[in-house]
C-alpha cells in the first residue's frame, strides 16, 4: 500500500475497476439527492447538494473535517431531518424522516461515532430492534449463537456475549459493522470505518465490503485515507464546506486532484519529516509491566519520535496510560531524565512534563457536553489563575489560539464539543495539550478521523515540538504514519515488545510480520 501521495498517484491496479461505472444506464440510480440542505441554527452544515448513487457501486465520499460528510449520512439514515431538498429512492420521492423509515428501505450505516448500547451484550446490540422471539419470549441463546456465527464469518474474533462497554472502540466499530450489514441491507454507508482498525481488520472489512457489493448492495464509503478510496471505490465525490464540488470515476482521477478539490489548494507532502538531532534522554521505561503489557523497555529522547505499532489490543494504550499514572504498573520502573520516578497519578505525570492525548476521544479525551474552550484549557487552568479567579482574557486567548492553529471548524469557542465533526473533535484532544509546555507528548492515534490537510499540519506541529526540545511517543495503528514519522519504531504483540528498529533500517513487510506474529 502506498505510503505517501507520490506512491499513490502512480496508481496500483484498482481491483474494483472492472465495473465500468460510466456504462450504467440511468435507471440504475438507486438514490438521488436533489438540493439537499441542512442547517443547525446558523451553521450551514450542508449546502444545496445534488448527488446520485448507482445500484451496486462503491461510492467514496471525501472532504475536509467539517465538510458535511457525516451530516449527509445522518440525513440519509433518518438520524436528523433535512431542512431542504428532495431525496429520491428507487425513483420514488421519500421522506427519510425517521431511522425506521430508512431501515425499512434497507438503508443502514456504520456511523463515525459508535452508536450502540454499552450496557448490552454484543449479541443484543447486533439484534437490537430485530430480536428473535418465540411466543413473545427472547431467544437469547439462539441470538447469541447467530451473532457469534456472523462475527466469525466476517473474520472478527469477538465474543458475542461480552458487554459492549468492555470492548475497545475499534472492536465496538466492528460490532456496528456486523450489525449494519445484516437485515436485508440494500444500501450501506460506512463513515470512516477504518479509523480505529489496523490493517488486518481493515482487510477483513474490505473483504466484507466487496462481498456485499457482489451481492448487489450499494456502498457509500467515507474516508480520509486516499489509498483506501483508490483500493475500493468505483466513483468518488468530494464535499467542500458543505457543497458537492464534484464526482469522478476512480480511473479518471488521482489523489492530487482529489486533495486539490477538497482543500482548494495543492499539497506537496503529507508526512512532514525533518532531521532533528536527538538531545538528552527524557523518559525511559525499564521492564515495565502492568495490565495488558509485559516487560516493556523504551527510551524517549529530545527531538525523537518513538513509534509504537501493533494490532488492536496489543497493549500499547495500556502501556501509555501506565506511564501517565492512570493505571498502576505491576513491576519495572520509569525514569525521568535518568532519575527513577514514582508516577502514581495523572497529576504527577503532568507536573513532570508528560502529556497524553488518549486514544478514545469520546470516552477519555473530551468533555462532550462542555464548551470547546473549556476542553482546550482543562489541563492548564493552573497556569491561568490570577489570584482566586481565572484570567478570562488569557483563557479566551489560549482557546482561540488553538482553534486557529489547528483550524478547528467552529463558530465559537463557546460551542459544545459535541456539536463538532469527528475530525474537529480529534483536533481538540490534541490541542488541549499543546499549551501545556510538556516535554514528552504521548499521542495515541492522534490523526484518527483527521483530514489530509490537517494531518499535514499536525505532523508539522510535531516537528515544531521536537525542535523545541520535546520528545514524542506516537501510537498508531496506521502503518504509513508510524513508518514515515517514527525515528525509532517498536512493535507490540500481545502485550510484548517484539521488535525495535530505527529509521531506515526496516521494511513494511518486517513490521507487519512482527505485529501479526507470523
Amino acid at each position, binding site marked *: 500500500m502506498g505510503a505517501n501521495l507520490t506512491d499513490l498517484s502512480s496508481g496500483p491496479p484498482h481491483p474494483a475497476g472492472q465495473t465500468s461505472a460510466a456504462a450504467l444506464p440511468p435507471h440504475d440510480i438507486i438514490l438521488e439527492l436533489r438540493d439537499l440542505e441542512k442547517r443547525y441554527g446558523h451553521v450551514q452544515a450542508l449546502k444545496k447538494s445534488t448527488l446520485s448513487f448507482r445500484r451496486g457501486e462503491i461510492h467514496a465520499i471525501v472532504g475536509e473535517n467539517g465538510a458535511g460528510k457525516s451530516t449527509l449520512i445522518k440525513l440519509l439514515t433518518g*438520524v436528523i431531518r433535512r431542512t431542504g431538498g428532495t431525496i429520491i429512492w428507487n425513483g420514488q420521492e421519500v421522506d427519510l424522516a425517521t431511522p425506521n423509515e430508512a*431501515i425499512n428501505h434497507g438503508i443502514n450505516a456504520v456511523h463515525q461515532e459508535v452508536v450502540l448500547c454499552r450496557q448490552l451484550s454484543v449479541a*443484543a446490540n447486533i439484534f437490537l430492534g430485530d430480536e428473535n422471539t418465540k411466543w413473545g419470549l427472547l431467544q437469547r441463546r439462539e441470538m447469541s449463537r447467530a451473532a457469534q456465527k456472523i462475527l466469525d464469518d466476517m473474520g472478527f474474533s469477538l465474543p458475542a456475549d461480552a458487554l459492549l462497554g468492555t470492548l475497545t472502540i475499534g472492536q465496538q466499530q466492528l460490532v456496528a459493522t456486523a450489525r449494519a450489514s445484516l437485515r436485508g441491507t440494500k444500501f450501506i454507508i460506512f463513515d470512516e470505518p477504518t479509523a480505529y482498525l489496523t490493517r488486518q481488520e481493515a482487510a477483513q472489512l474490505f473483504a466484507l465490503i466487496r462481498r456485499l457489493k457482489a451481492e448487489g448492495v450499494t456502498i457509500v464509503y467515507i474516508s480520509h485515507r486516499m489509498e483506501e478510496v483508490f483500493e475500493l471505490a468505483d466513483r468518488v465525490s468530494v464535499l467542500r464546506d458543505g457543497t458537492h464540488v464534484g464526482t469522478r470515476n476512480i480511473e479518471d482521477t488521482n489523489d492530487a486532484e482529489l486533495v486539490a478539490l477538497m482543500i482548494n489548494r495543492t499539497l506537496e507532502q503529507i508526512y512532514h519529516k525533518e532531521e532533528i538531532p536527538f538531545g538528552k534522554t527524557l523518559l525511559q521505561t525499564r521492564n515495565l509491566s502492568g495490565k495488558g503489557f509485559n516487560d516493556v523497555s523504551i527510551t524517549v529522547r529530545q527531538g525523537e519520535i518513538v513509534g509504537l505499532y501493533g494490532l488492536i489490543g496489543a497493549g500499547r494504550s495500556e502501556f501509555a496510560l501506565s506511564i501517565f499514572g492512570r493505571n498502576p504498573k505491576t513491576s519495572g520502573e520509569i525514569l525521568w531524565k535518568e532519575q527513577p520516578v514514582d508516577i502514581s497519578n495523572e497529576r504527577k505525570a503532568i507536573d513532570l512534563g508528560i502529556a497524553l492525548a488518549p486514544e478514545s476521544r469520546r470516552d477519555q479525551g473530551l468533555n462532550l457536553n462542555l464548551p470547546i474552550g473549556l476542553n482546550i484549557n482543562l489541563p492548564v487552568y493552573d497556569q491561568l489563575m490570577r489570584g482566586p479567579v481565572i484570567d478570562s482574557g488569557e483563557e479566551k486567548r489560549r482557546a482561540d489560539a488553538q482553534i486557529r492553529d489547528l483550524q478547528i471548524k467552529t463558530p465559537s469557542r463557546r460551542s459544545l464539543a459535541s456539536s463538532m465533526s469527528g475530525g474537529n473533535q480529534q483536533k481538540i484532544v490534541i490541542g488541549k495539550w499543546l499549551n501545556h509546555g510538556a516535554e514528552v507528548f504521548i499521542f495515541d492515534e492522534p490523526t484518527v478521523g483527521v483530514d489530509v490537510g490537517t494531518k499535514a499540519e499536525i505532523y508539522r506541529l510535531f516537528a515544531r515540538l521536537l525542535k523545541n526540545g520535546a520528545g514524542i511517543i506516537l501510537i498508531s495503528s496506521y502503518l504509513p504514519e508510524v513508518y514515515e514519522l517514527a525515528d525509532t519504531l517498536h512493535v507490540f504483540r500481545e502485550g510484548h515488545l517484539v521488535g525495535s528498529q530505527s529509521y531506515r533500517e526496516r521494511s513494511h513487510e518486517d513490521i507487519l510480520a512482527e505485529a501479526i506474529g507470523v
Partner: protein
Amino acid sequence: MTTETVPTSVKTRRNWNFLFALTLVGLLVLLCVALSIATPNFATGNNISNLLRQGSMIAILAIGQTFVIITAGIDLSVGAIVGFSTVVVASLIQSGVPVWIAIIVTLLMGLLIGFFHAFGIVKMGLPPFIITLATLTSLRGIGLLMTNGSTINITDAGFNQFSRESFLGVPNLFWMVIIVAVPAFVFLHLSKWGRYLYAVGSNPEAARLSGVSVPRMIYIAYGLSAMCAAIVGVMLAARLGVGNATQGDGWELQAIASSVIGGTSLFGAVGSVHGPLIGAFILATISNGANLLNVNSFWQRIITGALIIIIVFFDQLRRRSR
C-alpha cells in the same frame, strides 16, 4: 455516579472473603439468621407472614420504579399515587360501585397518571424529576380536596378481609407481589420490550437508530410505574380499610432506595426485577427486626442508615470483583 476503583480497600478483603462473595440474597439470609438467633419471635410462621406483608407494598413500588430508573428516569410521584389511589378506590367503593370495577378504574387512573408523566417528558421536554415532583404535589392536593382532609372509611368487609387472609399459607399481600413480579420479570428479562427499555436507558440515540420507539418505551415505563403504585394504593386501602390522601408519604424514597440497594443504577440501563424485591425485603426485615428487638425508635433510624451503607458496600465489592 463518580466511582473510583479502590486499590487500598482491596487489602482489607483478606479475612472477610466469604462476606464479600455474598450475593444480596445472601445478605438477606444472613440478616434473617442473625435475627432468628437474636430473638425467638423472628422465625415464627406468624412473624414471617407479617414480614411478607410489611415488605410487599414497597416491593411492588420498587419494581415499578425500576422500569423507570432503567430508562435513566425517576418517578417521585409513586408515594402520592398510592395515597391518591386509596382515596379513589375508597370513594368508588363507598359510592356503591362494585369492588372489582372500583379496582379496575383505580388502576386505569394510575396508568393515565403515568402516561401524563411520559407526555411531559416526551412532548414537553420536562426532566422526569420535575414532572413527577409536580404530580406528587398536585395529586396530594387533589386527594385532600376530594376527602376534605379526612379519611374515607371503607365498609365493604370482603375488600378489607382480602388483605388479612392467606392462600396456601402465604399472605394475600405477598401473592400480589408474585402476581406483579412474575409478569414484570418476563417483561423485563425475557421479552424484547425489556431489552428496549435497557437500550433506551443506555443510549436513546442508539435505540432510536435501531428503530426502537423511544417515546413508546417512556410511556410504557412511566405507565407501569404509576400502575404499580395504583396497585399498592388498592392494597393499602384494603389493608387500612380507609382512603386517605396523605398515606404513602415518602414511599417514593423507600422505593428508589430498595431499587438502588437491589443494584439498579440511577444512570440507567442497569437493573433487574429480583434486585429491588430483595432490596425492599431487606429494608422490611431491618425494621421488623428492630421492632421485635424493641430497639428505641431513634436508634432504629441510626441502625437502618448504617445497615444500608454496609449492605450496599458489600454488594458493590462483590459486583466489582466479578
